């Protein structure tokens, strides 16, 4: 059985023959499956090359780029105490999401390292605990926005597979913001339950009791009266105009 398997596999895995292969990251191994140099076949392990892990420059142009954005303007303040990561809601769930480290990589322009975190860099939930506790008012929560924008700019290809926008959810949000000028949590909850196919749970016993209670003490009506932000019509026009322009630019680019 084992023999059969071996025979089937024609091409060796990248860097397979390296002793203690697990210590070397995939990115650092260069190996061409088919390579012929001067008529000599040096395919596979015959051309394996391990690149150095050593960082050999600090890229301050990158730092300047972030500093010039609104959300990243305080990047020069960070002294790496780790208060943000310690406060973070996401880090306990995703160890690899580390705001402190991301800020440091941004400071030193270490794109090579940042690239490894394309999949988790978007995980910030925007609770702002880090920004509230930061001793130097770096505003790490917004720094994560700067990071997200940057990742979008520098690694569009890597991002493609990692991040898919759910058009349905996007539409719910857009309609909510453009229609009411604010997030409507009740509607958001309803929509998400509907999307998950849990419409029945929306009117369970607990919910029914809550609705009854809220109707009785008047809270239900105050929610309905919340209304829209002052002069919303003008803002709405501006946002719609902006979205239209963005779409035009995108279409032109295509």
């Amino acid at each position: 059985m084992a023999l059969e398997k071996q025979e089937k596999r024609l091409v060796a895995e990248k860097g397979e023959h390296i002793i203690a292969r697990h210590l070397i990251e995939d990115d650092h191994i260069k190996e061409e499956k088919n390579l012929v140099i001067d008529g000599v076949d040096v395919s596979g392990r015959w051309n394996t090359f391990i690149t150095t892990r050593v960082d050999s420059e600090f890229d301050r142009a990158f730092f300047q780029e972030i500093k010039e954005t609104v959300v990243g303007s305080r990047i020069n303040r960070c002294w790496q105490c780790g208060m943000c990561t310690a406060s973070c809601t996401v880090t306990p769930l995703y160890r690899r999401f580390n705001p402190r480290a991301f800020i440091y990589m941004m400071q030193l322009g270490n794109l090579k390292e940042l690239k490894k975190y394309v999949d988790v860099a978007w995980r910030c939930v925007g609770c702002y605990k880090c920004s509230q506790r930061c001793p130097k008012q770096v505003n790490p929560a917004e720094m994560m926005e700067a990071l997200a924008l940057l990742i979008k700019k520098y690694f569009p290809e890597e991002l493609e597979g990692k991040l898919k926008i759910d058009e349905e959810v996007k539409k719910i949000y857009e309609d909510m913001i453009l229609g009411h000028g604010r997030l409507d949590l009740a509607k958001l909850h309803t929509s998400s339950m509907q999307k998950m196919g849990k419409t029945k749970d929306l009117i369970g016993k607990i919910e029914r009791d809550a609705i009854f209670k809220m109707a009785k003490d008047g809270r239900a009506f105050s929610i309905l009266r919340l209304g829209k932000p002052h002069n919303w019509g003008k803002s709405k026009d501006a946002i719609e105009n902006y979205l239209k322009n963005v779409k035009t630019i995108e279409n032109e680019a295509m």
Partner: protein
Amino acid sequence: MAENILVIGGGPAGMQSATLLADLGVNVSLVERDSYLGGNPKKFKYKFLFPDMQPADNVIGELIRKTETNSNIKIYYSSEVSDFKENGKKFDVTIKSPNGNETKTFDSVIVATGFEHFDPARDAKYSYQLFDDVIDIKDLERMFGEGNVNRPSNGQPPKNVAFILCVGSRDRHVGNQYCSRVCCTVSVKQAIELREHFPDCEVYIFYMDIRTYGFFEDLYWEAMEEHDVQIVKGRVAEITSGPNNTVICKGEDTLLRGPFEIPFDMVVLASGMEGGPQSPEMAKKLGLELDEHGFLKPQNVTLAPFKSNKKGVFLAGACTGPKAISDSITEGGAAAMDAYVYAMKNK
């Protein structure tokens, strides 16, 4: 008859002691080994002092002028104490000067012999003296004083500069375990000065801890927040030559846990303070105690930091350990008070 008090050392602490005692009417003899007053700040032409960036001349120059013009102070330049004997509660001291030997009786003695900058050449990993572009903070201070901070190797303005902290401090390998207290603040001060002088020059500080204690912290915050000085955690283990006339700093970024080898145009070593050869010399001549770090040992570090183990001999300034100029001046005043009280009591 007025008291006679001997002050050994004409740096900030010694000058402060001498001028205060002279103002009280005491006959002060000030022994200075160099041909000028001002100690290390004068010797290495310090230009601006932290934390408020005031010109060094406002402090050191002012003290020198006050000392030189006071008629109660007799200054012995290029001199040393050649003989020291106790005479009851007083002291018979022979001062060896270019004008010959002079023996006097003093009521009390203040030792303010100061410190020496650590010589980075002693720590071979930093390649000091091997590469022209590897300098230390006292060299850079002198360069600022002389108005030329271009690269020593080719006279061009540097494009990126690295500061390396804790050179000759907190390092068992060179025999100094203590923190030299001022090098962090001096480094961030110089980083700011460099950024102001060369706005296009990138400045990095490699650190293990940044110890800008007390209000010196303001300067550290200013360096980062207003001058974009970047701090990188990790001590540099090796300095080698790089391409295009650069020097490469090799180290580990302990926050990212990865090695780096970055080429720089100029590297500034934040060399620390040492007791120098004068501290054991004083200890031997005057019968004082030395501590395990090579500085003179005070009787009680908390209660009487300026009293020595010998009654009537007082200590002031950096001879008892690394100190900022402001601390040395404070201690000069404190030691002067104690020396005066001792002299009055034993009149």
